[in-house]
C-alpha cells in the first residue's frame, strides 16, 4: 500500500489543511516511510487482544446534573478573531 499525492489531497481535505504542491510531494514520501515502518505491527498476532484506549480503569465519569456558573461572555470572547453582538463572527455560510 502506497500513499499517492491524490491520497494526500484527500486526507488534507479531511484535516482541513491546504497544502502546497511541494508539501504534498514531501508528505506523500514521509507518510509512506512512516507507514511502512508501522507495518511491523502486522507481524504481531493480536487476535482476541483487547485494545487499550487509555491505562486507567475509568469509564463514563459523571457529575450531578446541576447548573453551574458558566463562562462570562467577556471572557469567552476575549480571544475572538472577530465578534459582533456578543457572538463569534465568521463569513456567511449561506449564499
Amino acid at each position, binding site marked *: 500500500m502506497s*500513499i499517492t499525492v491524490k*491520497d*494526500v489531497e484527500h*486526507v*488534507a481535505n*479531511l*484535516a*482541513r*489543511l*491546504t*497544502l502546497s504542491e511541494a*508539501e504534498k510531494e514531501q*508528505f506523500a514520501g*514521509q*507518510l509512506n*516511510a*512512516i*507507514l511502512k*515502518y*508501522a507495518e*511491523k*505491527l*502486522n507481524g*504481531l498476532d*493480536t487476535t482476541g*487482544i*483487547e*485494545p*487499550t*484506549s*487509555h*491505562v*486507567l480503569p*475509568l469509564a463514563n*465519569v459523571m*457529575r450531578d446534573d446541576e447548573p453551574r456558573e458558566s*463562562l462570562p461572555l467577556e*471572557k*469567552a470572547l*476575549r*480571544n*475572538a*478573531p*472577530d465578534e459582533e453582538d456578543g457572538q*463569534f463572527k*465568521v*463569513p*456567511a*455560510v449561506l449564499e
Partner: protein
Amino acid sequence: MSLFNLRLSEVHNRLHHRDLSVAELVEASLARIGETDGDIGAFLTLDEAGARAQAKALDDAAGPERGLLFGLPAGIKDNIVTEGLRTTCASQFLSNYDPIYDATVVQKLKDAQSVTVGKLNMDEFAMGGSNENSSFHVTRNPWDKDRVPGGSSGGSAASVAAGQVYFSLGSDTGGSIRQPAAYCGIVGLKPTYGLVSRYGLVAFASSLDQIGPLTKNVEDAAYVLQAIAGHDPRDTTSANVSIPDYASALTGDAKGLKIGVPKEYLGEGIDPQVKARVMEALRVFESMGAVWEEISLPHTDYAIATYYLLASSEASSNLARFDGVRYGVRADNPDNLLELYKRSRSEGFGPEVKRRIMLGTYALSSGYYDAYYKKAQQVRTLIKRDFDQAFEKYDLIIGPTAPTTAFRIGEQVGDPLTMYLNDICTIPVSLAGVPAISVPCGLADGLPVGLQIIGKPFDESTVLRAAHAYEGQTEHHQLRPALT
C-alpha cells in the same frame, strides 16, 4: 547562580530567618535570565512585572504558614495555560492567545506560593524531541550551544540547567520531560498517567499526556510533585487516589530493592558510553544492597510504531479545535467558512504539526481505522502487559533515558523517522502509563547522560526513593554547564 544551587530546605531556612527575601530570589532569577537567555533561548514570554508583584506580595504577607514551594522562581512550559499570561504552545496559531483561566497545576503552584517568572519554549504543540519545531526560535543546550536541549520540554530543561529558575513544569507524552532532562543534566519526572490534572494543559495525545517537574535534584522533584498531584474533578481522566507524603520516601536507602534491566534498552542503537554510564549506576545500586538482573520487555520493538499511530491520531482529533473561529490567528479575508478553517490552520501550523495531523487523520480515516488505529491499541495492550509482568517480580525497571546524548542542532531535521527513534526508551513507559524519572548519571564526551528509573503505577514513592538514594551516592547531579 549560587542561590539556585541551595537545597529547597536551605532556601526556606534562609527565607524564614530573613537572610533572604523572595524579591532577592526573583531578582536573581531575572538577572540570570537577562545574562544567559540571549544565548539559550529558553523563554518565550517573560513576566517580570508579574513576578516582582508576586514576590512583593509574598514578602509582605509572609506569616508562619508558608506554602510548600514558597518564594521559588519557576518557569512553566508554554502549553500550560496561565490566566492573563500569553500561552502559545510555540505555535504561530496561538501567538496572540491570552488564556482566560489558570490550569489546575498553575493554581496549585499559586497555592504552594511559588513565583511564575515566565513561559518556556517547546516543540510546537509538544510535537518533537529537540525544540527545533518551535515556531519562534530554537532553544540551545546550556552544555553545548550547538546542540539541542531535547524536547519537547526543551525550554523547561534548559532553563533549570542554566540556573535561570529554581524549577520548571513540563509535559511528557512520549518522553518530553525525561529526554530533555537527560540531555540537560537535570532531574525530570513523568508521573503515572492520571496522577496530575491535565486541566489547562493544551491537549496533544490525551491518553498519554502528563505534567511533571524538572528540577536540579530528586528532593525538589518530590516537593514539586507533592504540590501538583491530586484528583481534579475538572479532568475526567484524573485518578482518585490518595497522595502520599513523597518527601518521607527519601530515606537514602535502596537496600533490598529488586530491579529489572531490560535488555532491549541496552541493545543495538544505544551509544556505548551511555550503556557504560548505566552499568556504572547499576553497580552503585548493588553497593547499596539492591539487586538487579536482566529482563526482557519483548514488545519494545513495536512501541515507536504504536506510539506514532496512537499519538498522531489523538493529535489530529485534539487539534481540530484550532479552527480560527474562537481564538488563535485567523487568516486574512477568507472567502467562506471552509476557506477560513483551511487557511487559518495551514498558515498557523508548522511542518511537524501538519505531518502528524496528516498521519493521524489517515490512520483514523474510513477503511484504515482497524488496520492502524485499532491494531496499535491492541499492541499497546501487549506493551502494557510486558510491564505488568515485570512488576510482578521487580520493584523498579532501570535503563537509559535516551540512546545517545544531545545531538547537534539541524542534524536530524530532514528525517522525521530517525528523530522518532530517539524515543525508544521513553515511549514504552508512556504507553504503559507508569511513572519514570530521569536522573543525571555522568557524562559522555562532556555531555550529560540520563538514567531512567521506572516504577509501578502510582508508586512514585519508590521511584523517588531509589533516585534519591542513588543521587546521595554520586555527584553527577551537582555538575553544572560552564555558562559564561
